[in-house]
């Protein structure tokens, strides 16, 4: 098992290299001079040249890349143009909101998506199944920000049940009640993703229903719920787990929009703000972190796969 994981990590090196090249190259593809943007329009050409030399931007591109990647490995991704702080601390300051939002959303997705998908699959072809399929497809067709704004209009502006925007840190205040600021965002974010998990759970369970070993399980005299949980659902978990990477990507895209709608001080909003402010080091840092996170999740998926399926575990 350990060997398997190590092999996978070594196999990821070319991908990591490619990711770093793409992320590094992105700044150089942007039209215009980053130094000029950094210093503003009033800077004289001499000042620009001085800063360029100071930052090493006059060196050949591969030297710059080497310097950058050396920094990244030691956790130094440069400084934010807007904040003047290090990129890592800028991102770190925003992490609390995004992580809490993600956890809350994940909880909702799992506790809605899997049971509802299970229900739909075990009641295949019934009115209930058809309604679930219809509703989940509806939710998958709603733009996240529109849903967010609509929920906000209704529950925050009209009914005033929940706050409409912002999120005071729990970390600093110690007040867990602040979680209520994240309820509407989490619902918004989980709606399309739950729909995805519902459909996925249903589809993969329906596939397993056709397997011979399910018939064997029934022929043993096992009760239907036992067959459904221990044979059908258990074997459909492989496909569910393999969709984790896909779900993560959807979650990130949704977070960008949701945090903007609800003005949450998270990483998603930071991306949008940084793009509008042309704060390239921050954008660079965030996309690098997210790409790495995605790859780490896929590694976990592979490990989980082996854990779920003895055929892989022992080969």
């Amino acid at each position: 098992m350990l060997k398997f994981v190590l092999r996978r990590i070594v196999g990821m090196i070319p991908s990591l290299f490619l990711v770093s090249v793409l992320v590094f190259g992105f700044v150089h593809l942007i039209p215009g001079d980053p130094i000029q943007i950094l210093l503003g329009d009033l800077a004289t050409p001499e000042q620009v040249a001085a800063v360029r030399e100071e930052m090493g931007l006059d060196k050949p591109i591969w030297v710059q890349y080497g310097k950058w990647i050396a920094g990244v490995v030691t956790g130094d991704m440069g400084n934010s143009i807007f904040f003047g702080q290090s990129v890592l601390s800028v991102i770190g300051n925003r992490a609390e909101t995004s992580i809490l939002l993600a956890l809350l959303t994940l909880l909702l997705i799992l506790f809605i998506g899997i049971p509802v998908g299970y229900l739909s699959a075990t009641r295949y072809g019934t009115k209930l199944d058809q309604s679930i399929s219809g509703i989940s497809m509806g939710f998958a067709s709603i733009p996240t920000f529109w849903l967010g704004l609509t929920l906000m209009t209704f529950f925050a502006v009209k009914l005033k049940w929940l706050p409409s925007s912002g999120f005071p840190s729990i970390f600093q205040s110690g007040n867990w009640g602040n979680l209520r600021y994240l309820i509407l965002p989490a619902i918004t974010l989980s709606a399309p993703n739950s729909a995805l998990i519902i459909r996925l759970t249903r589809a993969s369970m329906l596939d397993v229903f056709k397997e011979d070993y399910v018939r064997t399980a029934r022929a043993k005299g096992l009760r239907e719920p036992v067959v459904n949980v221990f044979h059908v659902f258990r074997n459909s978990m492989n496909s569910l787990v393999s969709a984790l990477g896909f779900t993560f990507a959807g979650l990130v895209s949704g977070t960008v929009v949701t945090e903007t709608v609800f003005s949450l001080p998270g990483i998603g909003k930071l991306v949008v703000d940084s793009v509008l402010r042309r704060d390239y080091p921050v954008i660079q840092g965030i996309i690098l972190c997210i790409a790495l996170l995605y790859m780490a999740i896929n590694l976990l998926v592979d490990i989980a796969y082996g854990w779920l399926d003895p055929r892989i575990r022992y080969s």
Partner: protein
Amino acid sequence: MSGFLKMLRSRKIAIAGLAFLGFIVLMALLAPLVAPINPLDMDPANRLLPPGKGHIFGTDNFGRDIWSRVVYGARTSLISSVGVVLFSVSIGIFVGLVAGYFKALNAPFMRLIDVMMAFPSLLLALVLMTIFGRGMVNVILAVGITYLTRTTRIVYGMTLKLKEEVYIEAFRSAGASDLRLLLKHIFPNLTSPVIVQATFTFAFSLLDMASLDFLGLGLPPEIPSWGNMLSEGSIYLARAPWMLLIPGLFIVLTVLSFNLVGDVLRDQVDPRFRHDIKGV
């Protein structure tokens, strides 16, 4: 195709979807006829009018007619989605075929595609938009690139499977050239799964482009598009909720219709490939 019709009959809701899409397309084509009021005409005296006589969907913060903007917005949205589909599908087919068919190209191409998938679609589109700048063609390119990965992977996977089929082997040993095999024998097998994928791409790119507009990083604000309308509507959501509600409903119904039709189409596809297609 007849199978598709049969399937449609058993799923009435998909017929409704198809009808709605027909309605939207007609509306976009006949825009000047169905919406006589210029969507750009401002009328400060009649700002934020609720839906009613004269303006069936009301007016926006500049007093522009919302119905007209919805109609012209349909044009913009459909054209950009068609652009995304054409771009991502044509490149996806090309790269997928080549990478799947020629063994030496498998690894480098697919590694690149895998790495691209590490960047979530909206995030990638955002970043690309900072490089390209706002504009219709740029939006199509940016979103098109993010959807390229899915089509490529499907085509790649199918090509790999098809290459191993006995009849393809037979043609090869009979001396058929690579080009001929690719175009005459492999490509025709790809069409229906790719069409299904294209339907889903259409739906989701519409959503993504609306999100870009909303974030202020898509089409320039002066172009009437459903996303831009929502973006403006979000500012007035308390005073003029119809500004948000109406274009939103059009997006939801259009995307839903595409998904419904895509679902029926997918069930028609060869079961060997059904699993490769990622709809919702």
